[in-house]
């Protein structure tokens, strides 16, 4: 699995239309007065839309390859993941605002063991 700025931007340009379609066309039957599984599920799909968009935003912002996040633009000449610890050694905590998510950087500080690049060679 790999990601690129181009692909992520494409996803971010297309998901909102799907989300809009979901919000206007979804058919939720049943009532408020009793258990409503349709409503439960629609709520979950709504969450997945928001989470899906946030994952794209986050993956686009993290301009390095790290763990399962492989950005095609950031690889070694041999095609291995290229981390950029000088710039991205932080956890991205995204704040939900209802509009654009806001990034809070929580720095990762290593006192005794510093990160190195894993090599299987």
């Amino acid at each position, binding site marked *: 699995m790999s990601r690129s700025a181009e692909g992520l931007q494409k996803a971010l340009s297309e998901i909102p239309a799907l989300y809009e379609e979901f919000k206007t066309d979804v*058919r939720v039957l*049943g009532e408020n007065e*009793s*258990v409503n599984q349709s409503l439960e599920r629609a709520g979950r799909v709504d969450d997945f839309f928001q989470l899906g968009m946030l994952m794209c935003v986050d993956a686009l912002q993290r301009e390095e390859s790290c763990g399962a996040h492989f950005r095609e633009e950031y690889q070694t000449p041999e095609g291995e993941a290229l981390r950029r610890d000088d710039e991205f050694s932080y956890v991205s905590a995204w704040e939900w605002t209802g509009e654009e998510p806001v990034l809070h950087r929580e720095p990762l500080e290593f006192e005794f063991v510093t990160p190195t690049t894993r090599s299987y060679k």
Partner: protein
Amino acid sequence: MNITLQVWRQPGPSSPGGFATYLVEDVSPDMSFLEMLDVLNERLVLQGEEPITFESDCREGICGACGVMINGLPHGPQLGTATCQLHMRKFSDGDTITVEPWRAAAFPVVKDLMVDRSAFDRIIEAGGYISVNTGSTPDANEIPVPKPVADTAFDAAACIGCGACVAACPNGAANLFTAAKVAHLNLLPQGQPERWDRVVAMVDTMEEFFGSCTNHGECEKACPKSISIDFIAMLNHDYVKAKFKNRRLVAQQG
């Protein structure tokens, strides 16, 4: 296959319910029973009718959420199988199938085929756990458990808490469930310190909610995990023994 379903529809716990008839066409014999209900539900949504409420989670016979009465049998006609693992190939083209929720006073209907099984949780809360400190993970074979004991504990632990035993029982008793839950802990070394307290607490709680066992044996036949009623004999045996024990002293001796 074309199947006619008679499904119990009930809007809420205190509303009256009744059977609704649906024709489900083009059912694949490879569908599970729940998939067939999914297909019907999708159609109902398109028609603007509220889909049938039923529970499911794992859909591989391990969570216990999905049980319904199918033609009057808990989890349907196939022995040792939960509703989610029952396939439409067990039925024939043109069949009429009746689907109902569990019928037991201790499991009130929430909606349609969904019932509230929290009375089972009350039994587990009473003693279905080990709260003594058992230390960290021991090395393999450091605590010897004879093979037949380990196998029996494992058989008991296969109970998925579905409630079919209660639904099958003419008394609405939960002895098979309680017996399985007690046995899988009472057989193992870690379960010994609380063994006697556990059996008394769980049986007494069970009796607050459920009917009494009169050894009909319907539960064993309905159980999707084929839990043996031998465990009920073990439960009764432990319960009687517990009444004669100085339980604090016994716990001391481990």
